[in-house]
């Protein structure tokens, strides 16, 4: 598979006087159709990494390539255009525009990209996508009148409307209940299979991570682990996905119920 996105020696530092290094020497490539989880503790830099991949944030050093295009050289508006055409976004807090209906929200990326009102075939596509995510009967509802899980489904449909090659998701189930989490996870995976869309998902939810083909673990702004999960034993997967401190302290925190001794059921 061809590399769709590649990161070369990415570093990110905040502050001018007191410098805080969030990311260091990150080298990653993502292939088309991959379903990747980026995991790590809060503060590890995983969200910053996702923001840099999604071009919402710029790295302090290093370069990002989309196929052969050097994204670090593009202007803000060129990046905006690039995002609009090639990337879909799913955020933790849904972020639908409350001023618009569910259907309008799905169409917004098209609207921005084309600069004109969506033609009937695009409206039909949006309706199909809403149907695909199980929101066909709520498409004319104001986005504030539907539940969190439903909003996230609409957001997923929105991420798909411009047929992007990559979907970037930051804690997509972070504010959903466990039942909805399972449903949304299933939906994301189905879309990955059906549309051959690359997914890069930042999560600390091991249920999501366990579903992924590949897991990138970030510790203190560096890539700690980067491995394919396919073929691994279920048990091994869960052990690998346990937080670093659990592995290092050799299960000391088991008593607190924070670390898995095997596959959890909940």
């Amino acid at each position, binding site marked *: 598979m061809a590399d769709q996105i590649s990161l070369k020696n990415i570093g990110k530092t905040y502050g001018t006087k007191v410098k805080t290094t969030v990311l260091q020497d990150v080298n990653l490539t993502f292939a088309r159709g991959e379903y990747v989880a980026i995991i790590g503790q809060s503060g590890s830099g995983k969200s910053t990494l996702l923001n840099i991949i999604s071009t*919402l944030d710029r790295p302090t050093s290093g370069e990002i390539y989309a196929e052969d295009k050097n994204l670090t050289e593009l202007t803000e*508006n060129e990046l905006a*255009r690039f995002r*609009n055409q090639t990337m879909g976004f799913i955020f933790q*807090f849904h*972020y639908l*525009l409350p001023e618009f209906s569910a259907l309008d929200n799905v169409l917004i*990326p098209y609207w*921005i990209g084309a600069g004109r009102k969506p033609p009937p075939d695009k409206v039909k596509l949006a309706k199909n996508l809403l149907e695909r995510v199980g929101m066909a009967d709520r498409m004319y509802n104001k986005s504030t009148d539907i539940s969190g899980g439903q909003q996230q489904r609409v957001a997923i449909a929105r991420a798909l409307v411009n047929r992007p090659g990559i979907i970037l998701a*930051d804690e997509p189930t972070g504010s959903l209940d466990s039942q909805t989490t399972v449903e949304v996870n299933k939906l994301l995976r189905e879309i990955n299979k059906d549309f051959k869309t690359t997914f890069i998902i930042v999560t600390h939810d091991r249920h999501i991570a366990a579903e992924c083909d590949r897991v990138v673990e970030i510790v203190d702004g560096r890539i700690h682990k980067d491995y394919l999960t396919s073929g691994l034993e279920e048990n091994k997967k869960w052990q690998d996905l346990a937080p670093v401190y659990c592995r290092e302290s050799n299960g000391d925190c088991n008593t607190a119920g924070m670390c898995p001794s095997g596959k959890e059921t909940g």
Partner: protein
Amino acid sequence: MFELTVALRFLKEGRLQSLLILSGIAIGIAVLIFLNALIGGLQVDLVNQTVGSSPHIAGRNREQEPRSVLGKVQQEPVVSIVATAGSAEKPLRNWTNLQEQLAETGKFTSVSPVINGSGFMILGERSLPVIVKGFDLEEANKIYDIRNKLVDGEFSAGRSAVLIGTELAEELKLSPGSIARLTTPTGETVTVTVSGIFDLGAQAINRSWVILSLPGAQTLFGLQGGITGIEMQVEDVFAADQITRILENRFPELIWSSWQEENANLLSALNSQSASSYLIQAFVLLAVTMGISSVLAVSVVQKSKQIGILKALGITTEGVSRIFLIQGALLGLGGSIIGSMVGWGLITLFLTFVRTETGEALFPITLGPGIFLVSVVVAVFAGMGAAALPARRAAQLNTVEVIKNG
């Protein structure tokens, strides 16, 4: 256009906020229109009262023939009252040609040849100094509106039939049909019959004018077909000055003067009135602009999530700016349209309820579409100007910050 749709939705969602600022703009624009119309109407009325019934431009011969008046003065000092130095100014010949040329320009509503002279009206023992006016009565009527201001007798003047003012008639106890003598400083005397009495609204005129026909005055002053001056009215009174300058170039043999030169005090009063009115309007507009600006600044904060998400989804920084500039323009447009209606209502109320004791409107106010059009255009641009800063802030919003903080 996507930005327009978003701008409309943003305004619609911020219902109370939008309504309040719309009312604010509407009030501001209403005041603007009301003040403008009021001051405009007042000034037009003042100018009309001042120069509506008098010549806007007057021309007379450059060289005056000095004639001693003093030797012939009888009883009362005349010089201070009589406008012209001699019994008559040096006559202007071939004036029909000049009148035609002036009329051909099409700039004048009337071109009236006149003869100005001084004299005495004598009845028995009483003698009063007067200004003798030789008029082409129909042409002069277009300027002075004498026909409608006749209080007694009939509208005619001839070689020995005169029109006089009310004050003069009263002082000499004259009424239509009365006979008196008119004497010039050079001693020419003619017996005249009063045909009518006018009230031109100014005491000085009512006391001193004696109107003869043009040939009558020519004979009296021995002008041999000449006249002493020419008086005109123009369509646009404020253009009189400018036209006067043109006339000075074209007919340098005459001395031209405009009503503006004669009424410098009135004009400076009008100008300072306009200036203060403009100042008030400018401050009202400034307050309106600041109102729009502050509402939009708050809106940027309220809508920061939406802006962040739109930026992530690929809207350009210019696109974000446009959303807020359009909001400013829409607020200006909506507010000024409502304001125009309110302003129109205020003026109608003013004209209906503020009246003189006799029940007439204080002064006429004419409302053209121009003032409304200007208000709307100004308000739209003010709205966009007000939106400039909030729009800039919105465009610079950091998407990552917005998304991170849920």
